[in-house]
């Protein structure tokens, strides 16, 4: 693994996460590089979502969930950060599209509004929707309910909602698992454009997706980081037998 810490925006160091005493993530150390896509793969229940959700402190809402170790973001330890400020800087897209039951415009504008954004809101909304490749489809009906959009459109709206905060990192928890292949392809195209400006951490079940979109890949099994490295190496030349079995589809 690389010892060079330049370009590391988020440094996960010896992190253990437990639910009511039961370990879900064990001693994971992992760098997240700036303006790159890092994929976390692994079988169901391996702790990849748990690890991802610890990066913007979403696990705070789960009673009995505890984290040891450090996650360094810039020069602060996430454990000591203000979670509200943290989530403003580290956005998240969830597994199932979860737009607010409000207008399309409001969905995107709400985050900036509550965080005291005082600039041109319409401009910010348009920019976020354009970045999420949704603008052309919704520009004439911004006041319609977001619930009238299709699943794929809703998920792109959720991405726009995260982008409107202009976060430094975007966490994506299996963002395509509830979508059809066409919508999935659109979101993957989107990821390529977004990594110009954003750091993305994506949890996925889809091996091809991880291979297609990411620069770095981490393979987790039973809460243990089995392998981490350049995506190409992990997929074509894995060091670990378990990784090879998993990425070639022999199990999981």
């Amino acid at each position, binding site marked *: 693994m690389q010892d060079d810490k330049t370009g590391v925006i988020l440094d996960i160091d010896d992190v253990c996460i437990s639910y009511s005493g039961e370990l879900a993530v064990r001693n994971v150390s992992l760098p997240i590089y700036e303006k790159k896509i890092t994929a976390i793969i692994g079988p169901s229940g391996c702790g990849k979502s748990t690890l991802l959700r610890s990066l913007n402190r*979403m696990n705070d*809402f789960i009673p009995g969930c505890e984290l040891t170790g450090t996650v360094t973001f810039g020069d602060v330890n996430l454990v000591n950060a203000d979670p509200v400020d943290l*989530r403003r800087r580290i956005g*998240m897209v969830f597994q*199932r599209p*979860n737009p607010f039951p409000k207008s399309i415009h409001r969905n995107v504008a709400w985050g900036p509004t509550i965080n005291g954004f005082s600039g041109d809101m319409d401009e910010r909304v348009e920019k976020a929707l354009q970045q999420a490749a949704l603008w052309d489809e919704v520009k004439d009906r911004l006041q319609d309910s977001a619930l009238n959009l299709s699943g794929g459109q809703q998920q792109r709206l959720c991405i726009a909602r995260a982008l409107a905060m202009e976060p430094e990192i975007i966490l994506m928890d299996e963002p395509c698992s509830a979508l059809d292949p066409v919508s999935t392809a659109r979101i993957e195209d989107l990821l390529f454009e977004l990594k110009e400006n954003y750091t993305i951490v994506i949890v996925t079940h889809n091996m091809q997706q991880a291979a297609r979109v990411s620069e770095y890949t981490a393979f987790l099994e039973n809460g243990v980081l089995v392998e981490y490295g350049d995506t190409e190496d992990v997929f074509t030349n894995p060091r670990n037998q378990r990784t090879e079995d998993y990425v070639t589809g022999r199990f999981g």
Partner: protein
Amino acid sequence: MSSSAESNLAWRHRKAAVFKGFCLTVTGLAVVILVVLLYQVSVIGLPWLDGQFLSSFPSRFPEKAGIKSALAGTLWLVSMTAMIAIPVGVLAAVYLEEYARPGRVTEFININIANLAGVPSIVYGILGLAIFVRFFALERSVISGALTMSLLILPVIIIAAKEAIRAVPSSLRQAAYAVGATRWQVVKAHVLPSAMPGILTGIILALSRAIGETAPLIMIGALTYVTFIPEGPMDEFTALPIQIFNWTSRPQQEFHELASAGIIVLLVVLLMMNALAVYIRNRGTR
């Protein structure tokens, strides 16, 4: 094998049909009883229901007696009860669902609120008499009545509001937290608006109960013969169910008919409140 499966299927269909018929009968019975009741009350009470009845104070002469003071007292009582019980009840529910850490203490509070919802109303009357009328020396005033009624309906409001808040999907809360919202911002912008229809339904049920309760009001000493309209929260008062109760306990037939007219007024007030709540709810969900 297949023939036995077929006869089994026929038997299952028959059972389903019997159960459906049973449910229909029970529902029909409830509706018939309600219609008969309304019909009877209307036949007896409607002839007495006129402007004179609505604008007169009680009297020992049935033809001069009216419901003005009781109607005014009920409106005072219900609006003050609403002003006290709705904010307290809804905020308590928000605290218990959104803020309180799940644990023994929260569990203990929840169980006790559920128990309080089942306490007979007369017990609240005794409590109101001891605390508000005597200890706080609020006398037999509208505020005493409203505070007592608030205690009575608080558990109903809290439980309904808690259920409504719990039904808000957690994915919605997470979405809001994930863009850097504080707890209060999440509650205000997303949880409460989504839970509002359920909360309003609970409030309607609770206030409907308050409007019909008689026992606690008698206990705290609301008057039965009032020839004035309360002008402030410290004034004495009477209420519709008390007036109705008073009329039914008189020996003269005319007063029994007046009671029926009073019941119609009570039902109309109730229906208007429900209509208002439905209107607010429909406007809110749009």
